[in-house]
Protein backbone atom coordinates (compact mmCIF):
# COMPACT_ATOMS: atom_id res chain seq x y z
CA UNK A 1 0.00 0.00 0.00
CA UNK A 2 2.20 2.79 -1.18
CA UNK A 3 -0.70 5.22 -1.25
CA UNK A 4 1.24 8.33 -0.41
CA UNK A 5 0.12 10.01 -3.63
CA UNK A 6 -3.53 9.86 -2.64
CA UNK A 7 -2.75 10.71 0.95
CA UNK A 8 -0.53 13.70 0.23
CA UNK A 9 -3.18 15.42 -1.75
CA UNK A 10 -5.35 15.53 1.33
CA UNK A 11 -2.69 16.69 3.69
CA UNK A 12 -2.56 20.37 4.58
CA UNK A 13 -4.63 21.48 1.62
CA UNK A 14 -6.08 24.79 2.70
CA UNK A 15 -9.79 24.78 3.38
CA UNK A 16 -10.19 21.00 3.58
CA UNK A 17 -12.74 21.26 6.35
CA UNK A 18 -14.53 23.98 4.45
CA UNK A 19 -14.62 21.85 1.33
CA UNK A 20 -16.26 19.02 3.28
CA UNK A 21 -18.80 21.37 4.82
CA UNK A 22 -19.59 22.87 1.43
CA UNK A 23 -20.14 19.44 -0.08
CA UNK A 24 -22.49 18.49 2.73
CA UNK A 25 -24.32 21.81 2.50
CA UNK A 26 -24.77 21.41 -1.25
CA UNK A 27 -26.28 17.98 -0.82
CA UNK A 28 -28.52 19.22 1.99
CA UNK A 29 -29.75 22.07 -0.17
CA UNK A 30 -30.49 19.69 -3.02
CA UNK A 31 -32.42 17.52 -0.61
CA UNK A 32 -35.01 20.25 -0.21
CA UNK A 33 -35.44 20.97 -3.89
CA UNK A 34 -38.22 19.27 -5.81
CA UNK A 35 -37.28 16.37 -8.09
CA UNK A 36 -36.62 17.15 -11.72
CA UNK A 37 -37.45 13.83 -13.30
CA UNK A 38 -40.55 13.26 -15.35
CA UNK A 39 -43.19 11.07 -13.65
CA UNK A 40 -43.35 8.77 -16.66
CA UNK A 41 -45.81 6.06 -15.61
CA UNK A 42 -48.42 8.64 -14.66
CA UNK A 43 -47.80 11.14 -17.42
CA UNK A 44 -46.97 10.87 -21.07
CA UNK A 45 -44.38 12.86 -22.95
CA UNK A 46 -46.06 15.43 -25.21
CA UNK A 47 -44.79 15.31 -28.79
CA UNK A 48 -43.36 18.45 -30.30
CA UNK A 49 -45.06 19.77 -33.44
CA UNK A 50 -43.74 18.03 -36.53
CA UNK A 51 -42.74 14.89 -34.64
CA UNK A 52 -41.93 12.12 -37.09
CA UNK A 53 -43.02 8.65 -36.07
CA UNK A 54 -43.81 5.49 -38.03
CA UNK A 55 -45.32 5.99 -41.45
CA UNK A 56 -48.99 5.11 -41.87
CA UNK A 57 -50.49 3.88 -45.13
CA UNK A 58 -54.00 4.34 -46.49
CA UNK A 59 -54.60 1.63 -49.10
CA UNK A 60 -57.64 3.32 -50.64
CA UNK A 61 -55.84 6.57 -51.41
CA UNK A 62 -52.80 4.93 -53.01
CA UNK A 63 -52.56 5.08 -56.83
CA UNK A 64 -49.57 2.75 -57.01
CA UNK A 65 -47.13 5.23 -58.53
CA UNK A 66 -44.05 3.77 -56.76
CA UNK A 67 -42.63 7.22 -55.98
CA UNK A 68 -42.38 6.40 -52.28
CA UNK A 69 -40.28 3.32 -52.98
CA UNK A 70 -37.99 5.35 -55.21
CA UNK A 71 -37.45 8.20 -52.79
CA UNK A 72 -36.97 6.14 -49.64
CA UNK A 73 -33.28 6.51 -48.74
CA UNK A 74 -33.30 3.51 -46.45
CA UNK A 75 -35.11 1.20 -48.85
CA UNK A 76 -37.73 0.67 -46.21
CA UNK A 77 -40.47 0.78 -48.81
CA UNK A 78 -40.66 -1.89 -51.45
CA UNK A 79 -43.37 -2.37 -54.08
CA UNK A 80 -45.37 -5.60 -53.84
CA UNK A 81 -47.71 -7.41 -56.15
CA UNK A 82 -51.00 -7.86 -54.35
CA UNK A 83 -53.27 -10.71 -55.56
CA UNK A 84 -56.37 -9.28 -57.23
CA UNK A 85 -54.81 -5.86 -57.74
CA UNK A 86 -53.44 -4.71 -61.10
CA UNK A 87 -51.03 -2.19 -59.60
CA UNK A 88 -48.00 -2.55 -57.39
CA UNK A 89 -48.50 -1.40 -53.83
CA UNK A 90 -45.91 -0.32 -51.26
CA UNK A 91 -44.87 -2.50 -48.36
CA UNK A 92 -43.04 -1.15 -45.37
CA UNK A 93 -40.18 -2.39 -43.22
CA UNK A 94 -40.21 -0.51 -39.90
CA UNK A 95 -36.86 -1.94 -39.01
CA UNK A 96 -35.23 -0.13 -41.92
CA UNK A 97 -37.16 3.13 -41.71
CA UNK A 98 -35.20 6.13 -40.50
CA UNK A 99 -38.32 8.30 -40.05
CA UNK A 100 -37.13 10.89 -42.53
CA UNK A 101 -40.63 11.56 -43.86
CA UNK A 102 -39.58 11.83 -47.52
CA UNK A 103 -42.16 9.27 -48.58
CA UNK A 104 -45.00 11.24 -47.03
CA UNK A 105 -43.79 14.34 -48.84
CA UNK A 106 -43.58 12.77 -52.25
CA UNK A 107 -46.80 10.80 -52.17
CA UNK A 108 -49.09 12.60 -54.67
CA UNK A 109 -52.31 11.48 -53.01
CA UNK A 110 -51.37 11.74 -49.34
CA UNK A 111 -51.78 8.01 -48.93
CA UNK A 112 -48.81 8.12 -46.57
CA UNK A 113 -48.79 10.08 -43.35
CA UNK A 114 -46.65 10.38 -40.27
CA UNK A 115 -47.82 9.27 -36.87
CA UNK A 116 -46.52 10.42 -33.50
CA UNK A 117 -45.44 7.00 -32.31
CA UNK A 118 -42.23 5.25 -33.05
CA UNK A 119 -41.66 3.23 -29.91
CA UNK A 120 -43.64 0.09 -30.57
CA UNK A 121 -42.98 -3.52 -29.70
CA UNK A 122 -42.87 -6.20 -32.37
CA UNK A 123 -43.04 -9.91 -31.78
CA UNK A 124 -40.14 -10.73 -34.07
CA UNK A 125 -38.09 -9.33 -36.90
CA UNK A 126 -40.26 -10.67 -39.80
CA UNK A 127 -43.30 -8.95 -38.31
CA UNK A 128 -41.54 -5.60 -38.80
CA UNK A 129 -41.52 -6.15 -42.55
CA UNK A 130 -45.10 -5.64 -43.70
CA UNK A 131 -46.70 -6.21 -47.09
CA UNK A 132 -49.22 -3.60 -48.32
CA UNK A 133 -52.29 -5.21 -46.77
CA UNK A 134 -50.61 -5.80 -43.43
CA UNK A 135 -49.33 -2.26 -43.45
CA UNK A 136 -52.77 -0.80 -44.10
CA UNK A 137 -54.34 -2.86 -41.33
CA UNK A 138 -51.54 -2.07 -38.91
CA UNK A 139 -51.78 1.63 -39.75
CA UNK A 140 -55.42 1.68 -38.82
CA UNK A 141 -54.60 0.10 -35.47
CA UNK A 142 -51.89 2.65 -34.75
CA UNK A 143 -54.26 5.47 -35.65
CA UNK A 144 -56.89 4.16 -33.28
CA UNK A 145 -54.34 3.89 -30.50
CA UNK A 146 -53.21 7.42 -31.17
CA UNK A 147 -56.75 8.73 -30.78
CA UNK A 148 -57.51 6.88 -27.57
CA UNK A 149 -57.35 9.20 -24.56
CA UNK A 150 -54.10 8.25 -22.92
CA UNK A 151 -52.19 9.51 -19.95
CA UNK A 152 -52.14 13.23 -19.29
CA UNK A 153 -49.31 14.80 -21.18
CA UNK A 154 -46.39 16.85 -19.94
CA UNK A 155 -43.94 18.90 -21.90
CA UNK A 156 -40.43 19.55 -20.66
CA UNK A 157 -39.07 23.06 -20.81
CA UNK A 158 -35.77 24.47 -19.58
CA UNK A 159 -36.38 27.38 -17.28
CA UNK A 160 -33.33 29.60 -16.76
CA UNK A 161 -34.02 29.87 -13.04
CA UNK A 162 -35.71 26.65 -12.02
CA UNK A 163 -34.02 24.24 -14.42
CA UNK A 164 -36.18 21.58 -16.02
CA UNK A 165 -39.88 22.23 -15.60
CA UNK A 166 -42.83 20.25 -16.87
CA UNK A 167 -46.10 21.74 -17.93
CA UNK A 168 -49.38 20.05 -18.67
CA UNK A 169 -50.43 20.15 -22.31
CA UNK A 170 -53.38 18.68 -24.18
CA UNK A 171 -53.11 16.28 -27.09
CA UNK A 172 -52.66 19.11 -29.61
CA UNK A 173 -49.82 20.59 -27.59
CA UNK A 174 -51.78 23.55 -26.23
CA UNK A 175 -51.17 24.45 -22.61
CA UNK A 176 -53.59 23.24 -19.97
CA UNK A 177 -54.13 25.95 -17.38
CA UNK A 178 -53.74 25.76 -13.58
CA UNK A 179 -53.78 21.94 -13.19
CA UNK A 180 -50.29 21.11 -12.05
CA UNK A 181 -48.33 17.89 -11.72
CA UNK A 182 -49.14 15.94 -8.62
CA UNK A 183 -47.00 16.84 -5.62
CA UNK A 184 -44.47 14.21 -4.83
Amino acid at each position, binding site marked *: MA*GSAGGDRHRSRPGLVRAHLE*AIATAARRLLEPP*MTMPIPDYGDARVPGYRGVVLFDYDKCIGCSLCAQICPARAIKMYRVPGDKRLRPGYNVGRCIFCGLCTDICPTDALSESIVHDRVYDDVPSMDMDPVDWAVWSRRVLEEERKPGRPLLRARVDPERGLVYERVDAEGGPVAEEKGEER
Partner: protein
Amino acid sequence: MDPIAWLSGSLGVPYWAVRAVAAPLVYPGLAAFMVVALFIIWAERKIAARVQMRVGPLYVSRRLGGALQVLADGVRIAFQEIIIPVGVEKWSFVLSPILAFTVVSLAFTMVPGGPGIYGFRSSLSLLATYAIVTLTPILVIVMGWASNNKFSYIGAGREALVSITGEATLLASLLAAAMMYGSMDFVEIVEAQMRSHVPGLVANPVAALLFFIAALLVTDRLPFDLVLGEQEIVQGPYTEYTGLLFALSMALGYAKLYVLMLVFTHVFLAGWAPFTSPLLGSIAVFAKTLLLMLVAVFLRSVYGRMRLDQVASMFWSKLFPLALVAFVVSALIHPIYAP
Protein backbone atom coordinates in the same frame (compact mmCIF):
# COMPACT_ATOMS: atom_id res chain seq x y z
CA MET B 1 -45.42 0.70 34.66
CA ASP B 2 -42.59 -1.72 34.16
CA PRO B 3 -43.50 -4.39 31.60
CA ILE B 4 -40.49 -6.47 32.51
CA ALA B 5 -41.46 -6.63 36.18
CA TRP B 6 -45.01 -7.57 35.19
CA LEU B 7 -43.74 -10.28 32.84
CA SER B 8 -41.38 -11.75 35.40
CA GLY B 9 -44.16 -11.72 37.99
CA SER B 10 -46.72 -13.47 35.81
CA LEU B 11 -44.26 -16.03 34.42
CA GLY B 12 -42.52 -16.70 37.69
CA VAL B 13 -39.12 -16.13 36.08
CA PRO B 14 -36.46 -14.03 37.78
CA TYR B 15 -36.31 -10.38 36.71
CA TRP B 16 -32.81 -10.52 35.24
CA ALA B 17 -33.67 -13.54 33.08
CA VAL B 18 -36.68 -11.80 31.51
CA ARG B 19 -34.58 -8.75 30.89
CA ALA B 20 -31.78 -10.78 29.32
CA VAL B 21 -34.27 -12.21 26.82
CA ALA B 22 -36.39 -9.13 26.23
CA ALA B 23 -33.56 -6.70 25.54
CA PRO B 24 -31.96 -8.56 22.63
CA LEU B 25 -35.28 -9.70 21.18
CA VAL B 26 -37.47 -6.64 21.53
CA TYR B 27 -35.78 -3.37 22.38
CA PRO B 28 -33.07 -2.34 21.63
CA GLY B 29 -32.76 -5.73 19.94
CA LEU B 30 -34.16 -7.45 16.89
CA ALA B 31 -37.72 -6.11 16.78
CA ALA B 32 -36.52 -2.53 17.08
CA PHE B 33 -33.77 -3.26 14.58
CA MET B 34 -36.32 -4.51 12.03
CA VAL B 35 -38.19 -1.23 12.27
CA VAL B 36 -34.97 0.74 12.07
CA ALA B 37 -33.73 -1.23 9.06
CA LEU B 38 -36.99 -0.85 7.15
CA PHE B 39 -37.00 2.85 7.81
CA ILE B 40 -33.34 3.57 7.27
CA ILE B 41 -33.02 1.68 3.97
CA TRP B 42 -36.03 3.56 2.67
CA ALA B 43 -34.60 6.83 3.95
CA GLU B 44 -31.26 6.05 2.34
CA ARG B 45 -32.86 5.50 -1.04
CA LYS B 46 -35.15 8.46 -0.72
CA ILE B 47 -32.41 10.84 0.41
CA ALA B 48 -30.05 9.74 -2.34
CA ALA B 49 -32.87 10.18 -4.85
CA ARG B 50 -33.82 13.63 -3.67
CA VAL B 51 -30.23 14.83 -3.64
CA GLN B 52 -29.94 13.60 -7.23
CA MET B 53 -33.26 15.32 -8.02
CA ARG B 54 -35.08 12.05 -8.54
CA VAL B 55 -38.22 10.85 -6.84
CA GLY B 56 -37.00 7.60 -5.31
CA PRO B 57 -39.30 4.83 -4.04
CA LEU B 58 -42.89 5.87 -4.65
CA TYR B 59 -45.26 3.30 -6.09
CA VAL B 60 -45.46 0.92 -3.14
CA SER B 61 -47.65 2.95 -0.76
CA ARG B 62 -47.76 6.22 -2.63
CA ARG B 63 -49.36 8.04 0.29
CA LEU B 64 -46.38 7.36 2.51
CA GLY B 65 -43.89 8.29 -0.18
CA GLY B 66 -43.06 4.66 -0.92
CA ALA B 67 -42.19 3.87 2.68
CA LEU B 68 -43.33 0.27 2.33
CA GLN B 69 -41.01 -0.35 -0.62
CA VAL B 70 -38.40 -2.00 1.60
CA LEU B 71 -41.04 -4.25 3.14
CA ALA B 72 -42.14 -5.27 -0.36
CA ASP B 73 -38.54 -5.95 -1.31
CA GLY B 74 -38.13 -7.98 1.85
CA VAL B 75 -41.16 -10.12 1.04
CA ARG B 76 -39.86 -10.71 -2.46
CA ILE B 77 -36.42 -11.66 -1.16
CA ALA B 78 -37.98 -13.98 1.42
CA PHE B 79 -39.70 -15.98 -1.30
CA GLN B 80 -36.68 -16.03 -3.57
CA GLU B 81 -34.86 -19.30 -4.05
CA ILE B 82 -31.63 -19.61 -2.13
CA ILE B 83 -29.18 -20.65 -4.80
CA ILE B 84 -26.11 -22.54 -3.66
CA PRO B 85 -23.62 -22.50 -6.53
CA VAL B 86 -21.81 -25.72 -7.43
CA GLY B 87 -18.32 -24.57 -6.55
CA VAL B 88 -18.98 -23.18 -3.09
CA GLU B 89 -17.92 -24.60 0.23
CA LYS B 90 -21.47 -25.45 1.16
CA TRP B 91 -21.59 -25.34 4.94
CA SER B 92 -19.41 -22.29 5.42
CA PHE B 93 -21.36 -20.57 2.64
CA VAL B 94 -24.72 -21.14 4.31
CA LEU B 95 -23.74 -20.81 7.93
CA SER B 96 -21.40 -17.83 7.90
CA PRO B 97 -24.02 -15.11 7.19
CA ILE B 98 -26.34 -16.64 9.79
CA LEU B 99 -23.54 -16.80 12.32
CA ALA B 100 -22.35 -13.30 11.49
CA PHE B 101 -25.77 -11.81 12.05
CA THR B 102 -26.18 -13.79 15.26
CA VAL B 103 -22.88 -12.47 16.53
CA VAL B 104 -23.91 -8.87 15.85
CA SER B 105 -27.25 -9.48 17.57
CA LEU B 106 -25.38 -10.56 20.69
CA ALA B 107 -24.32 -6.96 21.10
CA PHE B 108 -27.94 -6.08 21.87
CA THR B 109 -27.63 -7.89 25.19
CA MET B 110 -24.92 -5.44 26.19
CA VAL B 111 -25.94 -2.04 24.84
CA PRO B 112 -28.70 -0.36 26.82
CA GLY B 113 -31.73 0.98 25.01
CA GLY B 114 -32.69 3.29 27.83
CA PRO B 115 -32.38 3.64 31.60
CA GLY B 116 -32.57 0.13 32.99
CA ILE B 117 -33.30 -1.39 29.57
CA TYR B 118 -30.44 -3.77 28.93
CA GLY B 119 -29.71 -7.48 28.96
CA PHE B 120 -26.64 -7.51 31.13
CA ARG B 121 -24.73 -4.82 32.88
CA SER B 122 -21.05 -5.27 33.30
CA SER B 123 -18.13 -3.01 34.04
CA LEU B 124 -16.67 -3.97 30.66
CA SER B 125 -19.74 -3.72 28.46
CA LEU B 126 -18.22 -1.05 26.20
CA LEU B 127 -15.26 -3.27 25.45
CA ALA B 128 -17.45 -6.35 25.09
CA THR B 129 -19.69 -4.60 22.57
CA TYR B 130 -16.65 -3.55 20.59
CA ALA B 131 -15.31 -7.09 20.66
CA ILE B 132 -18.60 -8.54 19.44
CA VAL B 133 -19.00 -6.09 16.60
CA THR B 134 -15.45 -6.60 15.42
CA LEU B 135 -15.84 -10.37 15.36
CA THR B 136 -17.94 -10.21 12.20
CA PRO B 137 -15.19 -9.42 9.67
CA ILE B 138 -13.80 -12.90 10.25
CA LEU B 139 -17.14 -14.37 9.21
CA VAL B 140 -17.38 -12.01 6.26
CA ILE B 141 -13.97 -13.24 5.13
CA VAL B 142 -15.26 -16.79 5.48
CA MET B 143 -18.22 -15.82 3.27
CA GLY B 144 -15.94 -14.44 0.62
CA TRP B 145 -13.67 -17.44 0.74
CA ALA B 146 -16.49 -19.97 0.68
CA SER B 147 -18.20 -18.30 -2.28
CA ASN B 148 -15.45 -19.41 -4.67
CA ASN B 149 -15.80 -16.29 -6.78
CA LYS B 150 -13.24 -13.69 -7.79
CA PHE B 151 -15.34 -10.74 -6.67
CA SER B 152 -15.97 -12.38 -3.32
CA TYR B 153 -12.26 -13.07 -2.92
CA ILE B 154 -11.35 -9.48 -3.60
CA GLY B 155 -14.13 -8.30 -1.32
CA ALA B 156 -12.92 -10.57 1.46
CA GLY B 157 -9.39 -9.26 1.06
CA ARG B 158 -10.67 -5.71 1.29
CA GLU B 159 -12.73 -6.61 4.33
CA ALA B 160 -9.57 -7.90 6.04
CA LEU B 161 -7.67 -4.71 5.30
CA VAL B 162 -10.55 -2.39 6.08
CA SER B 163 -11.41 -4.03 9.38
CA ILE B 164 -7.84 -3.91 10.63
CA THR B 165 -7.60 -0.29 9.53
CA GLY B 166 -10.88 0.87 10.96
CA GLU B 167 -10.95 -1.06 14.18
CA ALA B 168 -7.70 0.36 15.45
CA THR B 169 -9.12 3.87 15.22
CA LEU B 170 -12.50 2.75 16.54
CA LEU B 171 -10.93 1.14 19.60
CA ALA B 172 -8.61 4.08 20.19
CA SER B 173 -11.49 6.57 20.17
CA LEU B 174 -13.57 4.35 22.47
CA LEU B 175 -10.70 3.93 24.89
CA ALA B 176 -10.09 7.66 24.88
CA ALA B 177 -13.73 8.15 25.81
CA ALA B 178 -13.59 5.44 28.46
CA MET B 179 -10.53 7.10 29.94
CA MET B 180 -12.42 10.40 30.07
CA TYR B 181 -15.33 8.87 31.98
CA GLY B 182 -13.16 6.49 33.99
CA SER B 183 -15.54 3.67 33.19
CA MET B 184 -16.42 1.10 30.54
CA ASP B 185 -19.98 0.59 31.68
CA PHE B 186 -22.57 2.28 29.46
CA VAL B 187 -24.81 3.12 32.39
CA GLU B 188 -22.00 4.75 34.32
CA ILE B 189 -20.84 6.60 31.22
CA VAL B 190 -24.28 8.07 30.63
CA GLU B 191 -24.71 8.91 34.29
CA ALA B 192 -21.36 10.68 34.34
CA GLN B 193 -22.50 12.84 31.44
CA MET B 194 -25.85 13.55 33.07
CA ARG B 195 -24.16 14.47 36.35
CA SER B 196 -21.84 17.01 34.76
CA HIS B 197 -24.33 18.16 32.07
CA VAL B 198 -21.57 17.96 29.45
CA PRO B 199 -22.11 15.43 26.66
CA GLY B 200 -19.02 13.62 25.43
CA LEU B 201 -19.40 15.22 22.02
CA VAL B 202 -18.62 18.61 23.54
CA ALA B 203 -16.00 17.39 25.96
CA ASN B 204 -14.00 15.42 23.41
CA PRO B 205 -15.11 16.19 19.84
CA VAL B 206 -11.98 14.59 18.42
CA ALA B 207 -12.85 11.17 19.79
CA ALA B 208 -16.47 11.55 18.67
CA LEU B 209 -15.47 12.45 15.12
CA LEU B 210 -12.97 9.61 14.95
CA PHE B 211 -15.52 7.14 16.23
CA PHE B 212 -18.07 8.27 13.67
CA ILE B 213 -15.64 8.07 10.76
CA ALA B 214 -14.30 4.69 11.84
CA ALA B 215 -17.87 3.44 12.29
CA LEU B 216 -18.57 4.44 8.69
CA LEU B 217 -15.57 2.40 7.62
CA VAL B 218 -16.37 -0.79 9.52
CA THR B 219 -20.01 -0.71 8.39
CA ASP B 220 -19.18 -0.22 4.69
CA ARG B 221 -20.79 3.17 4.39
CA LEU B 222 -19.70 5.66 1.79
CA PRO B 223 -17.09 7.06 1.31
CA PHE B 224 -15.57 3.80 2.53
CA ASP B 225 -17.81 1.17 0.94
CA LEU B 226 -14.82 -0.62 -0.51
CA VAL B 227 -15.99 -4.05 0.55
CA LEU B 228 -19.27 -3.76 -1.33
CA GLY B 229 -17.88 -1.65 -4.17
CA GLU B 230 -20.85 -2.26 -6.45
CA GLN B 231 -19.31 -0.79 -9.58
CA GLU B 232 -16.05 -2.68 -9.11
CA ILE B 233 -16.74 -6.01 -7.46
CA VAL B 234 -20.52 -6.45 -7.76
CA GLN B 235 -21.35 -6.98 -4.08
CA GLY B 236 -18.00 -8.01 -2.64
CA PRO B 237 -18.15 -11.03 -0.35
CA TYR B 238 -21.94 -11.16 -0.70
CA THR B 239 -21.95 -11.52 -4.49
CA GLU B 240 -23.12 -15.15 -4.59
CA TYR B 241 -25.86 -14.80 -2.00
CA THR B 242 -29.54 -14.91 -2.86
CA GLY B 243 -32.82 -14.88 -1.01
CA LEU B 244 -32.80 -14.79 2.76
CA LEU B 245 -29.06 -15.29 3.00
CA PHE B 246 -28.61 -12.15 0.91
CA ALA B 247 -31.04 -10.31 3.17
CA LEU B 248 -29.04 -11.42 6.20
CA SER B 249 -25.75 -10.35 4.67
CA MET B 250 -27.26 -6.94 3.85
CA ALA B 251 -28.82 -6.62 7.30
CA LEU B 252 -25.40 -7.32 8.78
CA GLY B 253 -24.05 -3.92 7.78
CA TYR B 254 -27.13 -2.11 9.02
CA ALA B 255 -27.13 -4.04 12.30
CA LYS B 256 -23.51 -3.06 12.86
CA LEU B 257 -24.37 0.53 12.06
CA TYR B 258 -27.28 0.41 14.48
CA VAL B 259 -25.17 -1.01 17.30
CA LEU B 260 -22.34 1.44 16.73
CA MET B 261 -24.69 4.40 16.57
CA LEU B 262 -26.32 3.22 19.82
CA VAL B 263 -22.84 3.16 21.31
CA PHE B 264 -22.21 6.66 19.93
CA THR B 265 -25.45 7.85 21.49
CA HIS B 266 -24.44 6.56 24.90
CA VAL B 267 -20.80 7.53 24.84
CA PHE B 268 -20.95 10.92 23.13
CA LEU B 269 -24.57 12.10 23.23
CA ALA B 270 -25.33 11.34 26.87
CA GLY B 271 -27.66 8.40 26.12
CA TRP B 272 -31.10 8.94 27.61
CA ALA B 273 -30.43 12.44 28.92
CA PRO B 274 -32.38 14.56 29.74
CA PHE B 275 -34.92 11.91 30.79
CA THR B 276 -34.68 9.34 33.53
CA SER B 277 -37.89 7.36 33.15
CA PRO B 278 -37.52 4.13 31.14
CA LEU B 279 -40.08 5.08 28.50
CA LEU B 280 -39.00 8.64 27.76
CA GLY B 281 -35.34 7.67 28.10
CA SER B 282 -35.78 4.87 25.58
CA ILE B 283 -37.48 7.22 23.15
CA ALA B 284 -34.62 9.69 23.54
CA VAL B 285 -32.01 7.01 22.87
CA PHE B 286 -33.96 5.69 19.90
CA ALA B 287 -34.43 9.14 18.39
CA LYS B 288 -30.77 10.07 18.79
CA THR B 289 -29.66 6.78 17.26
CA LEU B 290 -32.03 7.17 14.33
CA LEU B 291 -30.80 10.69 13.73
CA LEU B 292 -27.19 9.52 13.69
CA MET B 293 -28.06 6.75 11.26
CA LEU B 294 -29.81 9.25 9.02
CA VAL B 295 -26.65 11.35 8.97
CA ALA B 296 -24.63 8.25 8.13
CA VAL B 297 -26.85 7.30 5.20
CA PHE B 298 -27.08 10.92 4.06
CA LEU B 299 -23.31 10.93 3.55
CA ARG B 300 -23.85 8.35 0.81
CA SER B 301 -25.12 11.08 -1.45
CA VAL B 302 -22.31 13.47 -0.58
CA TYR B 303 -19.15 11.49 -1.13
CA GLY B 304 -17.68 9.23 -3.74
CA ARG B 305 -15.79 6.07 -2.92
CA MET B 306 -12.19 6.43 -1.80
CA ARG B 307 -9.47 4.17 -3.10
CA LEU B 308 -8.20 1.39 -0.87
CA ASP B 309 -4.77 2.91 -0.46
CA GLN B 310 -6.26 6.35 0.22
CA VAL B 311 -8.39 4.90 2.99
CA ALA B 312 -5.49 2.99 4.50
CA SER B 313 -3.15 5.96 4.41
CA MET B 314 -5.80 8.34 5.73
CA PHE B 315 -6.61 6.12 8.68
CA TRP B 316 -3.10 5.07 9.63
CA SER B 317 -1.27 8.31 8.97
CA LYS B 318 -3.88 10.87 10.02
CA LEU B 319 -6.81 9.56 11.99
CA PHE B 320 -4.89 7.15 14.16
CA PRO B 321 -2.40 9.82 15.27
CA LEU B 322 -5.41 12.04 15.88
CA ALA B 323 -6.65 9.37 18.28
CA LEU B 324 -3.59 10.08 20.39
CA VAL B 325 -4.71 13.69 20.50
CA ALA B 326 -8.09 12.42 21.68
CA PHE B 327 -6.29 10.68 24.55
CA VAL B 328 -4.59 13.92 25.50
CA VAL B 329 -7.92 15.76 25.43
CA SER B 330 -9.41 13.04 27.62
CA ALA B 331 -6.57 13.30 30.09
CA LEU B 332 -7.06 17.06 30.34
CA ILE B 333 -10.83 17.07 30.52
CA HIS B 334 -11.33 14.03 32.69
CA PRO B 335 -11.73 15.86 36.05
CA ILE B 336 -15.14 17.24 35.02
CA TYR B 337 -16.53 13.71 35.00
CA ALA B 338 -14.99 12.78 38.33
CA PRO B 339 -17.73 11.52 40.65
